[in-house]
């Protein structure tokens, strides 16, 4: 049996008439950093809440560490770290008191891990939590999540709104965790620069479904960018399934394709009205952007 740390089968979640997730199937192997990418409202946070057992599925099921999310015991929960963008903490408590509270909740608390991670952030222990900046709260939350030595760490847009220093401290702490701890990291972010730096694996989610799952370099190679001159209108090309986008920029046609062998497509373009074709290399952020934008367009058409 392959060791999947997170799995879901046919997972569906409806809120009233709104479907947040539909037939969501995913299997994430143990180890590494997995980046969750998708537009706002794509269903990422709903998926995390279902995983943690904070919501119950309408249909299907999901599991963490091989345990059904609906049956997680406190002991299992201790192995799952979760940091979300809000960085919510009781504002009236001192930092000291919050740490003490967490320590008492988690039997596997590692004080040296906590000390090492928090050292990246300038957090005074006697301060009230309410006085901390967003970056300091993020640091405190991450340090506490890592100190419970989780087997899986879920980070839901952890660096949103952080300044450069806090962001770099956060990433550095994350790098250490990946290298030192036996921890699988699920990293959800809109910051393509961070994703490119840290991700071993991309999971692209759109409209409540997993669209692509691939290593970043492999994913990049599946996307091609073409600049062509057309003598006729490129209508036939526009409707091909592999075409993510087709734009006219000052008379030249710019086309982005996915999963279409380059040599085939070049020949196809030349046979279908293109006078000249140039292939341009694609960066990861462009490739991801093209995929997400196409799905946006798909919504408009079906709406």
């Amino acid at each position, binding site marked *: 049996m392959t060791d999947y740390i997170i799995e879901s089968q046919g997972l569906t979640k409806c809120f009233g008439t709104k479907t947040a997730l539909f037939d969501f199937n995913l299997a994430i192997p143990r180890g590494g950093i997995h980046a969750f990418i998708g537009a706002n409202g794509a269903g990422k946070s709903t998926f995390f809440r279902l995983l943690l057992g904070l919501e119950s599925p309408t249909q299907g099921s999901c599991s963490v560490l091989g345990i059904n999310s609906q049956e997680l015991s406190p002991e299992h929960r201790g192995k799952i770290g979760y940091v979300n963008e809000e960085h919510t903490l009781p504002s009236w408590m001192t930092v000291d008191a919050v740490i003490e509270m967490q320590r008492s909740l988690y039997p596997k608390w590692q004080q040296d891990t906590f000390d090492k991670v928090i050292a990246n952030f300038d957090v005074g222990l006697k301060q009230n939590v309410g006085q901390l900046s967003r970056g300091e709260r993020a640091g405190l939350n991450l340090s506490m999540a890592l100190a419970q030595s989780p087997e899986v760490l879920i980070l839901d847009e952890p660096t949103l709104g952080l300044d450069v220093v806090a962001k770099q401290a956060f990433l550095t702490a994350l790098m250490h965790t990946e*290298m030192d701890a036996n921890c699988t990291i699920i990293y959800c972010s809109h910051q393509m620069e961070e994703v490119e730096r840290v991700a071993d694996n991309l999971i692209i989610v759109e409209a409540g479904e997993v669209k692509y799952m691939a290593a*970043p370099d492999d994913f990049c190679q599946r996307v091609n960018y073409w600049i062509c001159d057309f003598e006729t209108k490129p209508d036939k090309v526009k409707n091909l399934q592999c075409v993510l986008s087709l734009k006219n920029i000052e008379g030249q046609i710019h086309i982005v394709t996915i999963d279409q062998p380059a040599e085939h497509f070049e020949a196809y373009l030349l046979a279908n009205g293109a006078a000249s074709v140039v292939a341009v*290399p694609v960066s990861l952020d462009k490739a991801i952007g093209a995929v997400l934008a196409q799905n946006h367009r798909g919504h408009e058409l079906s709406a």
Partner: protein
Amino acid sequence: MAKTSAIAIQIATGDARPIFRQIVDGIRKEIATGNLQSGAKLPSVRALALQLMINANTVAKAYGELTAQGLLESRKGLGIFVAEPKQMLSEEEQQLRLQEASERFVNDVMYLDFSPEHMTQYLLKQLLQLQQKDENKS
């Protein structure tokens, strides 16, 4: 214990070249220009990952490729080192690389006002200097 050499490379995100490829190219260049000489000890995977703020697996993959190309060698328990130069490429592959490199060079210099003689002289001087550096070392 050998002292670790600093690696003066930068990586850029949003580039069409994957980060892994940028590291491979960067280290190749450092070796080619003599900034990293054979026998030099490279930072550990972990140290370079922290320096560049990237995933350690990416650094490991780049070191792996450079090792497969014969530019680096891993010494058990000691670390990763720049290998003694030995040719890993076939005659054909070398010819192809020479052709590509000279096309790039010609492309870069074709709009300059120098004569072909001047430019070849200059190129020759640089190549001889590199050779000299290598000989001094051994």
